[in-house]
């Protein structure tokens, strides 16, 4: 059993290192900088209609600068808050996400020269009577986590007796106002203006608060070279007129819209057709995460489960402790801890996919271990005694006599766990893995078709779960 165990551990380790080396080698060889950005913050960043690239003022400037200065960028749409945290943890090289330069942020980040002047504005429903901050007294307001608009609202919260609801991205925040849950939303003025022009049923009221400047950020004291390149590139763009072209392209009178789809592509079938490529990529990523996580979690679960029933108090204790920790931690906390917490401490990057797999393996593995333990214990004691009385060592008795019987007892739990694993992959959207849920968020942020898109995503999940269940039952029948 020893040999078997160490082989599996070696294998898992090799896979982890392999993935790790793979991603870090690429960045070293080609001088590619990984830039984090928001999921949607039009006109600064949003996914293009083709569903492949990110466009917007931020994105176009970033790419133009890269071209001027001769480096490559790898854009990661993590969401604003996750991007900022990933930068702090050194997981990415820079953040270009309409980030307002503020003294608090300057403690942790070094900023480029300002590339855009903005400020906070308030938007309310089109029929709303609210005209100024004074009208907000005792009302509910929607804000987006980690933004300077949110900071502004929090600073006046007491004074105006406002309660806040916090969202991860702009489109959910707008929805909250449009559905009437909140009376107003605060966001950067150009973003609000752009959204309204593109069909959000809201209007801007009041003045521009907290005039601010947008800057490109790197982690304090690191990536000096990148910052210098950005500043020099930006200067060149401003000088040669490219900068003005980009800004006009998105905010000028002929500005193009993020969601200019025709009526026909607004039906469910139409949405499916226009987004099929993106959805399929998300689907593939979800399947990959699910399958890899199931394999690792099953191996880990069986090892931990067997440790839990071994005739050794230390192994039992270790098993129980690990199960306790990883079953007890919410998956989302574990994901952030591994993706952001650990790199923050050690300074080494963990690719999001690897972090996601580790997260799922630990969490699902702990659940698996618990029912593996139960399954083994459910096998009659007499079986182990009979096997040992024949002179079989513990490990052989376990593998040849107990486990084959235990596995049969565990099969329904395994199938259940596979389905849970599939569903849990959706939580990994928080660390920016482009699986099905994150893909959905991004598409919706662009086309604002919340109901139809989430319906499509839900149906896709149900289809996968049906297939998975069907496959598992087939395997179950084969075994029995």
């Amino acid at each position, binding site marked *: 059993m020893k040999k078997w165990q160490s082989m599996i551990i070696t294998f898992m380790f090799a896979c982890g290192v392999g993935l790790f080396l793979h991603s870090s080698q690429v960045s070293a060889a080609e001088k590619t900088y990984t830039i984090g950005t928001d999921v949607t913050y039009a006109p600064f960043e949003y996914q293009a209609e083709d569903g492949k690239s990110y466009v917007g003022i931020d994105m176009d400037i970033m790419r133009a600068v890269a071209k001027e200065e001769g480096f490559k960028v790898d854009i990661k749409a993590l969401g604003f808050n996750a991007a900022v945290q990933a930068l702090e943890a050194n997981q990415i090289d820079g953040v270009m996400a309409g980030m307002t330069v503020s003294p608090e942020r300057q403690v942790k980040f070094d900023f480029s020269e300002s590339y855009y002047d903005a400020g906070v504005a308030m938007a309310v429903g089109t029929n709303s009577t609210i005209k100024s901050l004074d009208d907000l007294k005792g009302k509910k307001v929607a804000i987006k986590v980690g933004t300077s608009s949110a900071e502004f609202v929090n600073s006046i919260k007491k004074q105006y007796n406002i309660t806040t609801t916090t969202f991860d991205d702009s489109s959910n925040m707008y929805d909250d106002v449009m559905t009437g849950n909140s009376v107003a939303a605060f966001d950067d003025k150009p973003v609000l203006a752009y959204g309204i022009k593109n069909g959000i049923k809201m209007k801007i009221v009041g003045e521009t608060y907290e005039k601010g400047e947008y800057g490109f950020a790197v982690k304090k004291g690191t990536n000096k070279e990148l910052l210098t390149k950005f500043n020099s590139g930006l200067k060149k763009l401003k000088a040669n007129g490219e900068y003005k072209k980009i800004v006009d392209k998105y905010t000028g009178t002929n500005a193009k819209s993020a969601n200019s789809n025709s009526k026909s592509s607004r039906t469910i079938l139409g949405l499916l057709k226009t987004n099929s490529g993106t959805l399929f990529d998300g689907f593939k990523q979800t399947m990959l995460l699910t399958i890899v996580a199931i394999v690792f979690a099953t191996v880990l679960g069986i090892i931990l489960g067997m440790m839990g029933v071994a005739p050794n108090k230390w192994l039992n204790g270790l098993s129980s402790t690990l199960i306790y920790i990883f079953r007890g931690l919410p998956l989302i906390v574990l994901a952030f801890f591994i993706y952001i917490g650990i790199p923050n401490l050690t300074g080494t990057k963990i690719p999001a996919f690897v972090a996601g797999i580790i997260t799922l393996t630990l969490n699902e593995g702990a659940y698996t271990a618990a029912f593996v333990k139960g399954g083994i214990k459910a096998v*009659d004691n*007499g079986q182990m005694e*009979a096997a040992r*009385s*024949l*002179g*079989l060592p513990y490990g052989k008795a376990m593998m040849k006599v107990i486990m084959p019987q235990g596995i049969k007892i565990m099969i329904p739990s395994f199938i259940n766990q596979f389905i849970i694993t599939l569903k849990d992959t959706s939580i990994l959207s928080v660390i920016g893995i482009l699986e099905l849920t994150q893909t959905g968020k991004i598409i919706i942020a662009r086309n604002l078709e919340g109901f139809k898109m989430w319906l499509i995503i839900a149906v896709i999940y149900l289809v996968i779960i049906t297939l998975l269940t069907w496959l598992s039952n087939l395997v179950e029948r084969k075994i029995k």
Partner: protein
Amino acid sequence: MAAKIQVTNLKKNYGSNEVLKGLDLSVAEKEVVCMIGPSGSGKSTFLRCLNKLEDLTSGSIVVDGHDISDAKTDLNVIRQNIGMVFQHFNLFPHVTVLENIILAPVELKKETREEAVEEAKRLLAQVGLSDKADAAPNSLSGGQKQRVAIARALAMKPDIMLFDEPTSALDPEMVGDVLDVMKQLAKDGMTMVVVTHEMGFAKEVADRVVFMADGYILESSTPDEIFSHPKNDRTKDFLNKVLNA
């Protein structure tokens, strides 16, 4: 000649409950010892100590010159030489009868698979179940199961066999077949320790009958002595109850 099994001052506690209170017993080669006694007297516990399915609290057990209470003794090797048959058979339900019998010899590389299969077929013939090689254990009657269990234990070619009430979970009409197999084993010179309520079997087959009560061995002598002239009052009492039931 040195004893095949030598038990000296064996004590066994479950927590604070002392179940075996200092037992001494010596079993000679080819001897058949039957253990009788009331329920809860510690017979099973004693038997399970002999191949160390239970840890000893104190005392020593020497089997074939190997002290099994010594932590350095390789129990897996000792156990290969001591077959055990359980009240509830404990056949492996996930494999066939034949696989039950060859599992240990093949896994422990005692024999090649071919040799083991051949030996298993011979053993199945010996216990009268030649036609059941490919049957699933759960399709057998209790008596058949117990005979397979005996064949499985014999497949390791042990020279000691332990039986813990091998017939008490069987329907009466099945008991005879199992006892016949055991009688034949005794005739062939197997060293046997048998916990049983079958007084007829003890009378006929045992070289010695040991009476246990409350964690002590109270009497140990030939079947004739014990059944005709029991000395201890507890023995008399017990025999009265079981023989006149």
